[in-house]
């Protein structure tokens, strides 16, 4: 149970921070696409008999880089959709080859936070540290290129390279979070809390902090409720993500 709390908290912190940029850059489709595509990796891992996280660690950066490189000169939403479709197709094939129980596939899709092991928590902590370090390093150019790409370019920021780095960062978060919240619900955490946070605060750093706070409360509530009710954690995370956003809209509307 302690492991579940730790892993869930790490996921919330990193999803809250990276999600701030996902929402600011309008990259929610990619934030949905990378975890979905990584499903093929998890399924492939079970075929060859290695832990799912290894498959995630390989496939999510591949998907992220494919989306980034192929989307440069073309419609990036179309490219994202096709990369995801191809990867899901591959995932379906891998699944047909495995002898995994349905419950494990279900856990991949919707998360299984209560089954997190101590080793996985350590791995999560290391990846969280790396992701936070990356965000701290890229913070200013990433912020500027997210809100005013042309201006960033004129200042010498390599915006295309930065976009690619950001997608890889999303892949790291995916690897970290999918075992906990599942591929389908992963982007709930990367979109719901940061989108809601915008209604409450006005500055970038405050929004990032609020986003982390909301993500933490979401995950803690979801773990507690999943434990009490034996309903899937994904149900609570998904509903909470949307509920926060509705609450934020109400707050924003009242302020005007």
């Amino acid at each position, binding site marked *: 149970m302690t492991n579940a709390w730790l892993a869930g908290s790490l996921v919330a912190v990193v999803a809250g921070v990276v999600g701030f940029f996902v929402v*600011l850059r309008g990259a929610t489709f990619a934030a949905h696409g990378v975890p979905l595509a990584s499903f093929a990796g998890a399924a492939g891992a079970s075929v060859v008999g290695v832990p799912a996280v290894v498959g995630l660690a390989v496939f999510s950066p591949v998907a992220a880089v494919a989306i980034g490189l192929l989307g440069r000169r073309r419609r990036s939403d179309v490219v994202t959709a096709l990369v995801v479709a191809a990867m899901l197709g591959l995932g379906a094939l891998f699944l047909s080859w495995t002898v995994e129980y349905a419950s494990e596939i279900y856990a991949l899709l919707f998360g299984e936070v209560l089954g997190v092991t101590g080793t996985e928590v350590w791995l999560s902590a290391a990846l969280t540290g790396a992701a936070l370090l990356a965000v*701290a*390093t*890229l*913070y*200013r*150019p990433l*912020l*500027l290129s997210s*809100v*005013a790409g*042309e*201006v*960033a*370019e*004129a*200042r*010498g*920021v390599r915006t295309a390279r930065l976009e690619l780095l950001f997608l890889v960062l999303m892949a790291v978060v995916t690897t970290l979070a999918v075992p906990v919240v599942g591929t389908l619900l992963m982007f709930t955490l990367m979109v719901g809390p940061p989108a809601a*946070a*915008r*209604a409450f*605060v*006005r*500055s*970038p750093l*405050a*929004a990032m902090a609020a986003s982390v706070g909301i993500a933490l409360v979401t995950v803690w509530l979801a773990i507690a409720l999943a434990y009490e009710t034996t309903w899937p954690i994904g149900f609570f995370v998904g509903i909470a993500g949307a509920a926060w956003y509705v609450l934020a809209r109400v707050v*924003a509307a009242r302020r005007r």
Partner: protein
Amino acid sequence: MPPVRVLTVEGATVTFGGRRVLDGVSFSVEAGEFVGLIGANGAGKTTLFRVVLGLLKPSAGTVRHLGRRVGYVPQKVAIEPDAPLRARDLVALGLDGERFGVRLPSRSRRERVDRMLEAVGAAAFADARVGTLSGGEQQRVLIAHALVGQPSLLVMDEPLANLDIKSGHEIVELVARLAVEQDLAVLLSAHEMNAILPHMDRVVYLAEGRAVSGTTGEVIRSDVLSELYRYPVKVLDVDGTVVVVGGHDVKVR
């Protein structure tokens, strides 16, 4: 002592897919000068800016900068109303927004940002979200972002395109005043030139990839402009203000 040329473009040529977008463009901008880049849509103004900013390498010709850095103000930014970014955050990114790593807030940085916001008349909305500001207010914030790093050249891409007449004139007057105060050269593109005429020292006219450069008095004349636009254009004096109008049916009463 001859004036310092902060920007010298010589024979800049850019070819896209066999089409010459810029064809041997040459002009220079001297320190403190207010230069208008005039040209019809598609004449190559944006391409020339990309060359000046170093984002596009010309296939022939050279671009030389002297002095401090270049500040750039885009035509507009697309920032949603609820994006958590205050005017002061965007101006602070003008100090060193391209750098990696963490920068802790300091009093001197805050003071520089405050002074700049004050100078562009944006102090009143310094803590408002950029996305909720009007076009003219956003333009002021973008100018503050570009100038807070104390460039020697300010490049503005169609700053008046999205503004009403009043805001447009206010922005031009602001830039002209800052240019004097901060020893700043300005290169500003526009297809509607009336607002910038009173402040413009020199004109670079761009048509079909070629540039003609001259003082405002040399270029802003009915015969010269009509020839350049290949369309009847009249330069009129209306109560002491020079205005440029186009069209066959322009009659001077």
